[in-house]
């Protein structure tokens, strides 16, 4: 929606809830707090009502003055005014606190449900939508709704109530004052409509342009070394300037819109004030109301300026918050993945692949007729060029995608028969994507096994050779790592991923590009760590370095989606085929 990201064709964005579904979801979340919500409403209404006592009391003082009462007579209404103040304050305390309590509880419920559903989505679904969609919902949308609940909703509620009750109070003074005040309403309504039509797309554009600028600065500043290496300084300075000018441009359009908005509201204010004063003039002249009442009406109306401006200005926030809410509810309302009624459990860790074929676009096979037979505990390396189908094969075996043809069996049970919950306990998949979870290192590892004690964590780290550097960290396992914490190197992050694999302790493990991007020295350290982590499991490794293949029990060579050779490293080298030529090139004159 507002992200500047390109959406390649075929992207299937996650659902957005309709208005009715969104309302139903909010009602459901509100239900446990409805008692408190009712109390909040009572407190807000009472607070607004009490605050309206001020104007008639001032009117009473004016009337006393006009009728020539002695100075002492003023004391009574003034004391009443003084009594209104703390009552108004206390009711505001109750109202604000209760509204916040309800709002925050609903918000917490919503975000928890969202995260649970988001993490429960099938990986295939997330990849179809692109993880950017999910990330922008969990960050931008949740925080937008949060801000609205925290700031806009209470202010909006209070202002709206003040307006409503002021209008009632004006009517109580004399119904003609209400009529006069309502003269401002058409102008305000037209202004609001005029503003909302322009503001929503303009603010969306402002966010996009701001994001583009931020991205450009990250590009240029983050890549400064690359910019200098290629002598691109002038070009990048120009790019930053252009982006920055776009930001200035849109900011000026925003301020023009806002000032025009307030300008129109000024007109409404003037029309209203003039009408109320004129009404007062006529009614006082006719002897229908006192000067005090006319003054009270004028004071009422002047005090409406601020709440009216607030309510109308907040309409825009309300509109964007509603859009964000619909995007959150869209995910939070998804049904969790369903498995078979009676999941079959695997009997061992043997993997059998039969006639496996797959395509992402109909007619474009990426994998065809693949047969594999891995005995429990075997270490198998997949070798092949980019696009040969290694990653697809790895994902099919891990149960990420459902194969188009053929089947994957683990421990004698097909993956469909096992269902997602059992597959999750059977196969682990480590991809190139390294992510270190923000927080203490120990907590990161415990995601893999929540009940593990420190000894178990240290043992797992030792298995993958990470113990020396973990011990050297400032606070050991308690060291805060990840975003905003102690920065880990790529090799350390990958070792962490392998340690999680050890802790998760699944009988079958699949490593895809797990050692890429670590630099040559790092790759070797990781290869050793991966070998230890896979010990005792059936391992399927997408090999990037042929040393990984040489160390495996079995090598499978893929080309254009088919298995072209398989066997032990030595057999394949002796056979003098494709693998042997690769090995020669790799090991030169070995």
């Amino acid at each position, binding site marked *: 929606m507002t992200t500047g990201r390109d959406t390649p064709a075929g992207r299937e964005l996650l659902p957005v809830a309709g208005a009715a579904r969104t309302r139903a979801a909010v009602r459901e979340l509100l239900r446990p707090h409805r008692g408190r919500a009712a109390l909040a409403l009572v407190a807000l209404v009472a607070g607004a009502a009490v605050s309206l006592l001020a104007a008639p009391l001032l009117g009473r003082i004016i009337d006393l003055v006009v009728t020539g009462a002695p100075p002492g007579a003023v004391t009574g209404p003034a004391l009443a005014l003084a009594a209104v103040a703390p009552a108004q*304050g206390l009711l505001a305390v109750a109202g604000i606190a209760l509204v916040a309590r309800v709002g925050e509880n609903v918000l917490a419920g919503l975000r928890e449900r969202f995260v649970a559903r988001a993490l429960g989505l099938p990986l295939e679904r997330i990849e179809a939508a692109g993880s950017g969609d999910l990330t922008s919902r969990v960050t931008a949308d949740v925080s937008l709704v949060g801000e609205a609940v925290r700031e806009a909703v209470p202010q909006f509620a209070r202002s709206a109530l003040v307006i409503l009750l002021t209008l009632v109070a004006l009517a109580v003074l004399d119904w003609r004052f209400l009529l006069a005040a309502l003269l401002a309403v058409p102008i305000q309504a037209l202004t609001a409509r005029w503003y909302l039509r322009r503001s929503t797309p303009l603010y969306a554009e402002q966010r996009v342009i701001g994001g583009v600028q931020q991205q450009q600065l990250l590009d240029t*500043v983050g890549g400064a070394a690359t910019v200098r290496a290629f002598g691109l300084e002038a070009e990048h300075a120009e790019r930053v300037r252009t982006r920055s000018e776009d930001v200035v441009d849109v900011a000026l359009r925003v301020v023009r819109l806002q000032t025009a908005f307030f*300008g129109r509201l000024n007109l409404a204010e003037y029309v209203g004030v003039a009408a109320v004063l004129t009404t007062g003039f006529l009614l006082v002249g006719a002897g229908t109301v006192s000067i005090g009442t006319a003054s009270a009406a004028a004071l009422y109306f002047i005090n409406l300026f601020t709440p009216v401006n607030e309510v109308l200005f907040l309409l825009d926030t309300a509109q964007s918050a509603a859009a964000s809410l619909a995007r959150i509810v869209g995910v939070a309302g998804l049904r969790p993945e369903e498995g078979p009624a009676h999941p079959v459990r695997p009997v061992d860790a043997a993997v059998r692949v039969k006639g496996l074929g797959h395509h992402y676009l109909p007619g474009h096979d990426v994998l065809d007729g693949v047969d594999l037979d891995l005995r429990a505990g075997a270490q198998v390396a997949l070798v092949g060029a980019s696009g040969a189908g290694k990653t697809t094969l790895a994902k099919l075996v891990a149960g990420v995608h459902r194969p188009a043809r053929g089947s994957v069996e683990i421990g004698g049970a097909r993956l469909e028969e096992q269902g997602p919950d059992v597959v999750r306990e059977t196969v682990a*998949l480590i991809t190139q*994507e390294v992510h270190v979870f923000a927080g203490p290192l120990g907590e990161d590892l415990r995601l893999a096994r929540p009940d593990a004690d420190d000894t178990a964590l240290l043992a797992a780290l030792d298995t993958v050779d990470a113990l020396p550097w973990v011990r050297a960290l400032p606070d050991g396992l308690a060291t805060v790592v990840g975003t905003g914490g102690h920065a880990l190197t790529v090799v350390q992050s990958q070792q962490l991923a392998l340690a999680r694999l050890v802790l998760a302790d699944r009988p079958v493990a699949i490593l895809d590009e797990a050692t890429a991007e670590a630099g040559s020295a790092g790759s070797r350290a990781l290869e050793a760590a991966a070998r230890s982590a896979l010990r005792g499991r059936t391992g399927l490794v997408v090999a990037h370095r042929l040393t990984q293949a040489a160390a495996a029990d079995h090598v499978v060579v893929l080309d254009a989606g088919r298995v072209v050779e398989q066997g032990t490293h030595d057999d394949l080298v002796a056979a003098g085929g494709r693998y042997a030529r690769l090995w020669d*090139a790799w090991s030169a004159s070995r």
Partner: protein
Amino acid sequence: MGVGNITGWRLLRASVGSQRRDVAVASVFLVGHQTGEALVPVLVGVVIDEAVRTGDARALTGWLLLLGLDFAVLSFSYRFGARRSWLADVRADQRLRLLVADRVLDPRGGAETGRLPGNLTTVAVADAKRVGIVNFALPLGLAAVAAAVVATVALLRISLPLGLLILLGTPPLLYLVHLLGKPLERRSGPEQERAAQAAGVAADLVAGVRVLKGIGAEPAAVRRYVGTSRAALAATLRATGAQAWYQGAVLAANGLFLALVALVGGRLAAQGEISVGGLVAAVGLAQFLITPLQIFGWVNGRLAQARASAARIAEVLSAAPAVATGPRPAPADPRGALRVRDLRHGPLDGLDLTVPAGELVGVVAPDPAAATALLRCLGREVDPEGGTVELDGVPLVEYAPRDARRAVLVAAHDAELFSGTLRDNVLAGAPPERDPVPAMAAAQADQVAAALPDGADTAVSEQGRSLSGGQRQRVALARALAADAPVLVLHDPTTAVDTVTEARIAAGVRALRRGRTTVAVTSSPALLAVTDRVVVLDGGRVRAEGTHAGLMDTDTAYRTTVLG
């Protein structure tokens, strides 16, 4: 441009000075606006006195017209004042952002020393914005002064004692409010942080969703998130409780003050000291005065923030350059003979290395720090602590950094891609009119293009994060090859690609760079196999050299390094 000693204060003054016309015009308009606002309650009082009380219809028409004029003035003043001050704000903000970008991009480097890239971006965006806002805050502050003055004069004219009561009473009232808010400020800081943390944890878990799914850790992650979310909820509720008490107290204090004004004003009116309209105006002004005084507080806060931000920007702008610039003109058509003489930098301890023009040399450095030090010296990212790097017999430090880099291109292992299409990226450093195809083929980046929806026209986003590591690496290599530098230094260009592709890339690089000086700092056997000669470093110097095949046969340590 600003390398040198710039203080935050001077930067702040220059930032306002650069937009002084707009700031001045905006001040005039906003003073007009606030004066108009202050006059509204006064005029309403007059209408009640002169028209409602007397029943004089002509007076009503006249004063209402004047009130209309006041509204017109305040509305238009606000419109033009706000636009001008906003313009001054965003222009100053932009000016600072560009200054920071220019400093970061200075060929001599040095701005990013000791900083994370995210931190510099924050300086360029958030800090620049905080300094720019001064141009918005200053006119607003001046207008608030004007409003306070107008209200004061009006109040004193209505009644000296009542005016003094309001004028002397308002500052203590605001001070009281400030005191009430103080503990809230202290409490809400860390508590808001807790709330923000919950959002951070959610984003972090979602970002790592593939990792979680890979090991079946989703249930554990959800349980953890619920814990964080509940803790954040408790913290937020404590903060909102404090917030509610604060707002309630402000309302109550305000109301009590109003009652006091009504009491004193009412008695004065009853004694005939002031008129009824005067009483209405005084009550209205007492309410109005709070706004300008609150603006003072806001302006003060912005100024304090702006000073801190200006200091951070000044620090970036005055960062010392990482390398000196040289006196010589750019080398004309260099042959590309590279010579490293007695180089001492970091772990390098007297490194000597000669690469004749046109040779393809492999450098194997078992210590990654030594490789980095050598690459930084070759790319003139730093000036060596000792010794020289010479191109065709001339030390690189004698050239301007840009000219040196144009002759000796160091393609870093973690080079960033930029937004634009894949083709734009490949041609980024290339001479004009260059055909990207041979470089892309040599780097196997044509395979990357073939796998993308729009081929080489596919947009690359977020520093290439839309591509996989292997794809990114191949595009970066194609860019380095397309630049056609007289000397090309490649650092680990194939760590993220598979073995089959790596072998093809090695052959492609060999063919494309024939006759051009190329140095490959790597331990990839596929790449080393296509070099003319391999140099092995150890202890900061050359330990061995020979052909890859020869070293594989005779040098066990080399074999272990390369094959693992």
